């Protein structure tokens, strides 16, 4: 990660004058470094994000079901996940590094990333479950459905839009924070950003890595909107 600073700026690039003189955005550098630098960073970024969102969802979903059954749990869970959510990312990463059983590795990063998804996913799942009209629940009960059947066949499908909305926010949040995580664990799209800054502010790499992070976040957001429409066809029909 630490690259020797030279007094005379040297951006490499050999005969490539665009890179040598650090002019704006050099497409040739991106082409030359796509396979070795940029694409691996994108892949790592997607991995980091997917792991955090999946684990975060499993935990938050469990917590939401718990709070749905017993109202008393709602406030303590909201407050504790809220505090985790409010702690700035860089601070949380460094506080976690302070625990001796954690280090500068992916585990530390994932713990922090998961902790940021909890509040959003918990609150949205719970709101989705609570939003099911009482009449619908009573009708299901009247049809002889058990509590478990009501949950899986009535409440969860109706809560899906809220749950996916939560997944959207959680995913873009994690994509953003995973960039910062490169400070702790040198992977993902933050890694080329930091390297570019340390090598005398190499603009092409800044634009390429920063741009890829933005594109990744927007694509993930759009993909989840699409997923939301696919899993809830009735919502679309209602609106039309």
């Amino acid at each position, binding site marked *: 990660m630490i690259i020797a600073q030279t007094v005379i700026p040297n951006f490499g690039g050999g005969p490539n004058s665009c890179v040598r003189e650090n002019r704006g955005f050099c497409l040739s550098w991106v082409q030359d470094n796509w396979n070795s630098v940029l694409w691996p960073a994108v892949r790592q970024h997607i991995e980091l994000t997917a792991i955090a969102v999946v684990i975060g969802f499993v935990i938050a979903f469990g917590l939401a079901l718990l709070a749905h059954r017993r109202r008393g749990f709602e406030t303590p869970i909201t407050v504790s996940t809220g505090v985790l959510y409010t702690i700035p990312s860089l601070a949380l990463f460094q506080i976690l590094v302070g625990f001796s059983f954690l280090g500068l590795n992916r585990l530390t990063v994932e713990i922090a990333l998961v902790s940021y998804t909890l509040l959003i996913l918990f609150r949205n799942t719970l709101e989705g479950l609570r939003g099911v009209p009482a009449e619908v629940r009573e009708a299901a009960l009247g049809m002889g459905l058990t509590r478990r059947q009501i949950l899986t066949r009535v409440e969860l499908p109706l809560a899906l839009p809220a749950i996916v909305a939560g997944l959207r926010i959680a995913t873009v949040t994690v994509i953003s924070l995973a960039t910062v995580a490169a*400070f702790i664990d040198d992977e993902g799209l933050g890694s080329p*950003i930091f390297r570019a800054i340390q090598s005398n502010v190499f603009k092409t790499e800044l634009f390429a890595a920063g741009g890829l992070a933005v594109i990744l976040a927007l694509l993930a957001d759009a993909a989840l909107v699409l997923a939301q429409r696919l899993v809830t066809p009735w919502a679309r029909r209602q609106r039309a």
Partner: protein
Amino acid sequence: MKPVLDGFPWIGHHVSLVFDKLGVHMLIAGIALGVALAIALPIGVWLGHIHRGSFAAINVSNVGRALPSLAVIAIAIGIVGLGRNTLILALVVLAAPVILTNAYVAVDTVDRDVVDAARGMGLREREVLWHVELPLALPLLFAGVRTAAVYVVATVPLGALTGTDGGLGDIIVNQASYRLEGVVGAAICVAALAIVIDALFAGVQRVSTPRGLRGHIDFAAVQTAAAGNPQEEGPP
């Protein structure tokens, strides 16, 4: 566990350093939030008042929320170079969307009957906005300001990662000078700062709500109303 605990006495031993960095931190955050408010509030409130541009206003926040903070800072550095103003510019870009959208939704969703009644009573357009729409919009509008404030305070430390002033972040990223105790101590300070700012703005939000509305508003929920309601979003 030990370095985490050592962070607390470190704060006690370095009060003046912490306050020094805290001052820079608040200055950067304050300027960025001020500029973001000056740009986003009038636009959001005006669009909400004339009930136009819902597609743009909602999508600005969806895109704004998706923007990774470090990526925005990196791109800003690529365009204008390193420096405190670059960080402030990036913070404005990150904070403005949430303020704009919340202001828009807040004013746009004020009960139309109330607004009609105000017009019927002979209030002029400006009076409708100042005396009817804005007071009723304040809780939701402040939710956006609050989110933006916490976001800005939490993002200032990233400046230190990118080679410019980062307030308390300067200590967080500099383990060579401040050792792990200092890093953890400063991290604890930033975490506490974010929580305090959140609580502070929650208080302002409560106080600024017209008395007649206070009992009816679930302050935890107003934020989600703007952030997560799938019905309010336009096509992808």
